[in-house]
């Protein structure tokens, strides 16, 4: 359903990514691992179609949702409006419901700057979950959250993945998170970064099964 | 200047004149300086050109100049408002109303319902006199029954030529150009003034000085008047005196140059003091026509308006 084949991605003179390719079917979840600054967010931006300046091809569905590494909210619109503007087909009740699910039931009428950073991140999560994405892209979605809240969010993500069966691509530094959510992992390493050969798309479920 | 002249010149009082650079008064001032009429009358003329009439008045009021040019109705208003301005006649040239070459109009009445372009604004003297004339002659309310377009002189000039307006009232050097371009004078303000029983020989335009300045230089009024007369006499009689002025006259053709020279000569007033009674009659008419807007609060000609020149 989505197929990614990136030959090279440069920033100016610097080559950042080289030969990264994978496929992902609906319902599948791929975790992207790699150390800070390796090129994970860059990869996600290429996949999402934000950045077209690279060599290679990406096939992606139309309906996408994204959680950036930073919340990226409309600071001048209330929390609830941040959902409704992005998803015009969403009813207000459904939006409030979604806010409640991420623990922001009582913050619907606040401006983003009136929320703590963790709350802003959850708002950004709610925004991604409120649509019907066929491809869900999450860039470190659960940082800045305490353990309990993070667990809630992971559970919520799992529910969503089960209900809507999007293809999911997500970045994390926590092996544990990857294990809980992902079918497979893809680790980036090197300079320019490329897929680590020996563990090329490790398949957890199978691993676990074996 | 010869060295001897220089020595005397530096001793003479200086009269600073703020004038519109393209104004006709420049022709006279230029002639005064060129022929030394200023030093001959015991002063040295220094001309500061400005690009706008308002600017010359600001210069006079602000003390940057000692003399400017205006009409005496304006001066009367200022005097009534407490300024110590006095008036020395310079020109009686007045305008008229011109219509396009192919216009069928023969009298003001024929302009009924049409547009008239007016350069001087709603209190333009020519416009006021023509209104009075239309009223008296035909019982026709010119202001009410025509549409007026007030605008900058060049725009009125152009609108007149293009036929956008059916009649135009403009400043006289523009009128000269309009006539040179084939427009026809429907009626001159002079004709209208005579019909209204006014003395057409009363010069409207003149030099304005401050009394305070004249107190310091008591001879200056007569000196300026003397120099002005000398220049006028020369310009009236001697065509050659015009040649050096020609580059500044902005006359593209010989015909235009001729018209300008003729009109200037026609505007030279008779020598001597202004006929105060005639001026008072004139002023009363202006008060009744222009009202407060034109003359401010005054109803009668303020005393001491005209400098004594004899």
């Amino acid at each position: 359903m989505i197929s990614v084949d990136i030959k090279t991605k440069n920033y100016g003179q610097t080559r950042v990514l080289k030969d990264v390719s994978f496929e992902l079917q609906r319902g599948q979840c791929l975790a992207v691992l790699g150390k800070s600054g390796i090129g994970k967010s860059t990869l996600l931006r290429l996949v999402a179609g934000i950045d077209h300046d690279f060599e290679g091809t990406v096939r992606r569905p139309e309906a996408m949702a994204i959680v950036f590494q930073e919340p990226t909210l409309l600071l001048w619109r209330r929390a609830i409006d941040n959902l409704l503007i992005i998803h015009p087909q969403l009813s207000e009740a459904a939006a409030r419901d979604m806010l409640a699910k991420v623990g922001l039931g009582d913050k619907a009428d606040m401006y983003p700057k009136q929320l703590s950073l963790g709350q802003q991140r959850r708002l950004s999560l709610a925004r991604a979950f409120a649509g019907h994405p066929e491809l869900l892209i999450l860039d470190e979605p659960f940082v800045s959250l305490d353990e309990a809240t993070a667990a809630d969010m992971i559970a919520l993500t799992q529910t969503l993945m089960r209900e809507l069966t999007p293809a999911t691509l997500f970045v994390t530094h926590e092996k544990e998170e990857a294990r809980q959510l992902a079918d497979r992992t893809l680790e980036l390493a090197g300079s320019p970064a490329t897929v680590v050969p020996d563990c090329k798309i490790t398949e957890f479920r199978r691993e676990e099964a074996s | 200047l010869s060295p001897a002249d220089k020595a005397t010149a530096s001793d003479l009082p200086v009269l600073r004149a703020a004038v519109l650079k393209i104004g006709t008064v420049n022709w006279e001032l230029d002639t005064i300086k060129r022929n030394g009429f200023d030093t001959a009358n015991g002063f040295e003329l220094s001309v500061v050109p400005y690009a706008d009439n308002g600017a010359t008045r600001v210069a006079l009021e602000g003390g940057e100049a000692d003399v400017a040019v205006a009409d005496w109705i304006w001066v009367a208003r200022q005097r009534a408002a407490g300024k110590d301005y006095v008036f020395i006649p310079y020109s009686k040239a007045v305008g008229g109303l011109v219509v396009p070459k192919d216009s069928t109009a023969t009298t003001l009445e024929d302009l009924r319902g049409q547009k008239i372009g007016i350069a001087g604004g709603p209190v333009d003297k020519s416009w006021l006199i023509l209104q009075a004339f239309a009223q008296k002659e035909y019982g026709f309310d010119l202001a009410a029954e025509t549409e007026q377009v007030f605008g900058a002189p060049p725009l009125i000039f152009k609108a007149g030529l293009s036929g956008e307006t059916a009649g135009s009232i403009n400043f006289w050097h523009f009128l000269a150009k309009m006539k040179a371009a084939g427009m026809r004078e429907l009626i001159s303000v002079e004709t209208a003034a005579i019909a209204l029983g006014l003395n057409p020989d009363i010069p409207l335009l003149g030099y304005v000085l401050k009394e305070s300045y004249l107190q310091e230089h008591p001879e200056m009024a007569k000196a300026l008047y003397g120099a002005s007369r000398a220049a006028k006499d020369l310009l009236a009689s001697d065509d050659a005196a015009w040649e050096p002025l020609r580059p500044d006259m902005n006359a593209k053709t010989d015909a235009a140059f001729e018209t300008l020279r003729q009109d200037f000569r026609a505007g030279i007033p008779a020598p001597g003091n202004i006929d105060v009674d005639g001026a008072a009659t004139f002023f009363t008419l202006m008060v009744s026509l222009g009202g407060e807007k034109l003359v401010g609060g005054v109803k009668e000609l303020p005393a001491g308006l005209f400098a004594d020149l004899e």
Partner: protein
Amino acid sequence: MATPIIRAISLMALLCVWFLLAAIGGDPTVLPSPAALVEPFWQELVSGELVYHLTMTVARVIAAFFTALAAGIVLGFLMGTRPKLDKWLDPWLVVFLNLPALVLIVLCYLWIGLNDIAAVTAVALNKIPGVATIIREGARALDPELKSMATVFRVRPFTYLRHFVVPQLAPFIAGASRSGIAVIWKVVLVVEFLGRSNGIGFQIHLYFQLFDVAMVLVYSLSFIALMLSIEWLLLQPVEKRVQAWRLA
């Protein structure tokens, strides 16, 4: 202190300064004291002149303002977001930005005729480049992350403009409108004295020719009073709502 009280005191202070200057100057024909304006003001008000000319001017200002603002915002936004277009149009912008008002006004009057369409066109043409210049800077500073977000979520163009772009441009629009309306009204003054037969500019120029400073001030201040009320009754409340998120 409550805002209206501050405003009143502040204006009072301005009035006092004026009283003082008038007293020091000592020449009512140069700067009349505020008290000397009451009578002429009343007179013009009763005669209906003031209201008539003010209405004409305001109508022109409004027409030119909205034309210039709309066109300027669109142009500035396009130039700010499309560097290629910007490169092509920039020379034109500089030329029109610096074309003297007089030239544009005279050309408009000569081509379109001595009428209000020409007047309003001239004023709008005068101000469009100025608005575009300011808005262009704002458009260049738009947050690229929000743009990315909109791309991924396939936000509709109109929604993008309304909820993403306009709020980010709000300070630029506010600045351009405020200083823009002031410039427009000043150009309207020129337009009116060059070729219209009514309006504040016509009156101001008339009284300036007559050197009647009191009347010039009466007419100038009437418009300023109007602008103050628009500022307080319309602009500032709207701005407060739009900027609420900053202060929350």
